[in-house]
């Protein structure tokens, strides 16, 4: 990797990410319309979308920076800053609320020593509130990455935290095998 004069390492996305971006550009009817999957490709690699990636997409998609930032900031799942290792998003909408989401949030706040919306000092956990995650019949629930943990109790929440502290992501309720 070369180093430009300002001393910062050159920004470069993984070849696989670049290939994904080129593939979605080819499959969407217009280059600009491939913006959301292109942003997801960056998110999947880095966990956030830095300004250097935005510059790259300006060139590849032939859209303005403003257009990209509009989209980047409109949708809650895209992030512009590096994220905690584990972002725990607890649903606080009506069905989960009825089934005790507040207790789960209070329990997590106590166990992690942070308030909702904050990140632990070691950067391991961020605790966030989320609007309805579509698990209403299995509430309370929380989202971690691609998966949902459902029917949460304080005990189940503790198990999840203990496992994550050891670096093991436990099997989620939506984590069904995709064997064929």
């Amino acid at each position, binding site marked *: 990797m070369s180093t430009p004069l300002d001393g910062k390492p050159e920004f470069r996305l993984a070849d696989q990410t670049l290939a994904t971006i080129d593939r979605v550009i080819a*499959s*969407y*009817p*217009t280059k*600009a*319309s*491939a*913006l*959301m*999957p292109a*942003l*997801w490709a960056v998110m999947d690699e880095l966990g956030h979308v830095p300004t250097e990636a935005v510059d790259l997409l300006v060139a590849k*998609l032939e*859209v303005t920076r403003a*257009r990209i930032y*509009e*989209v980047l900031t*409109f*949708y*809650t*799942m*895209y992030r512009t800053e590096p994220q905690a290792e584990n972002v725990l998003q607890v649903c*606080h*909408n*009506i*069905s989960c*609320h*009825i*089934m005790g989401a507040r207790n789960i949030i209070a329990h997590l706040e106590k166990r992690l020593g942070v308030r909702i919306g904050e990140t632990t000092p070691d950067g391991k956990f961020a605790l966030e509130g*989320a*609007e*309805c*995650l*579509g*698990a*209403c*019949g*299995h*509430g309370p629930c929380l*989202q971690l*990455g*691609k*998966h*949902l943990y459902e029917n949460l109790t304080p005990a189940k929440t503790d198990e999840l935290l203990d496992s994550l502290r050891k670096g093991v992501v436990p099997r*989620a309720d*939506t*984590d*069904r095998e*995709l064997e*064929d």
Partner: protein
Amino acid sequence: MLSARFDRNDGHKRSVYEQEGGYQALRMALGKMTPVEVREEVKESGLRGRGGAGFPTGVKWGFVPADADDVYFMVNADESEPGTFKDRYLLDYDPHQTLEGTIISCYAVGAKLAYIYIRGEFGWLIDRTEQAVQEAYAAGYLGQDILGSGYSLDVIVHKGAGAYICGEETGLINSVEGRKGQPRIKPPFPAVSGFLDKPTIVNNVESVASVPWILNNGAAAYRKFGTEKSPGTKLFSVSGPVKNPGVYEIPLGLPFREFYHDWLGGMIDGEELKAVIVGGSSVPVLPAAEMMTVNLDYESLAQAGTMLGSGGMIIIPESCDMVELIQVLMHFYFDESCGQCTPCREGTGWLHRIIKRLRGGEGTAADLDLLEHVCRGMEGLTICPLADAAVMPMMSFLQKFRPEFEALVQETAPAGPTSRWPRGEQE
């Protein structure tokens, strides 16, 4: 009809779906029927859009101009309406059913490219649907010259990124164009000018998933289920402290009383039924006594002053504080308002702040009038129905459970709405 494979762990496989008659409707449609015939059959079935609005699916398809060359089709799996989790089941347990319905629907409207728009939070579901799409390509159900019919179609699974408003069809279209998901002014309706200004049909997952059964069995057989104006079956996703929450497929017209006692098993021990939001958080709430007299179909629920909506049924127990619940909902609509229409952007914030003030012990009797006043300044005055979707629960909670709001009013606080308007406070 729709939920045959919901209890199984292998129903998502193409081989299982095919063994049970899957993709036969597609073979029949492409081999023996013209697109117009498919459209007529679905129109004849009386299938109504299952996303919430209840507009007849076949009629919607008919709005695509006959001479259109580029037509797009979008399956709306942005399921984000609080209380709703049925489309998730359809794609998780039986993705090929929805996929077959998608291909047939695309043939009926002449689309060459379809998107399945899945909310970004359903990460695992996106993988599963993507896998089903790959299986369909491998079997020749997608791609060029499907089953030797000369008809070609591509399907793209599009991942949302967290925005309730993208469930609104023109918001969804803008999102697929790579824009903010802000709804468009109608007309023009998407069937005439939608994605990239071309004719575009947006249908809910459940609507599309109903199509193979209708073709296999005929419109007349479909109409044997349900009522005259609400034919067929409907998925209800039930949440709250009942004994058996979950997703149920019921013939439309089933009395709620029967559904509640016989299917849901009533409340869990120690809880009493207080109220029900029957069709997702955006429809008016009904107290338990009123619910016990309704049937679960479009007309009966409309007559009772609420809506069937998405079928996201939220069961509210006696132990719940209704003002607290409406604060939770108003926070949601305030958070999710896309911000382009002033009545919605400002009104949802006002409603949330007034409720918060009431619950904080600083509300006055004038605040209850102010809630109604703000609601009247929102409903029907915006580009899309999000403002209405906030007003309907707000007004119905206030009307049906007014004593709980009145109990929070502080008689000693200064009166007069002008001095009480909640300005400038940030959430």
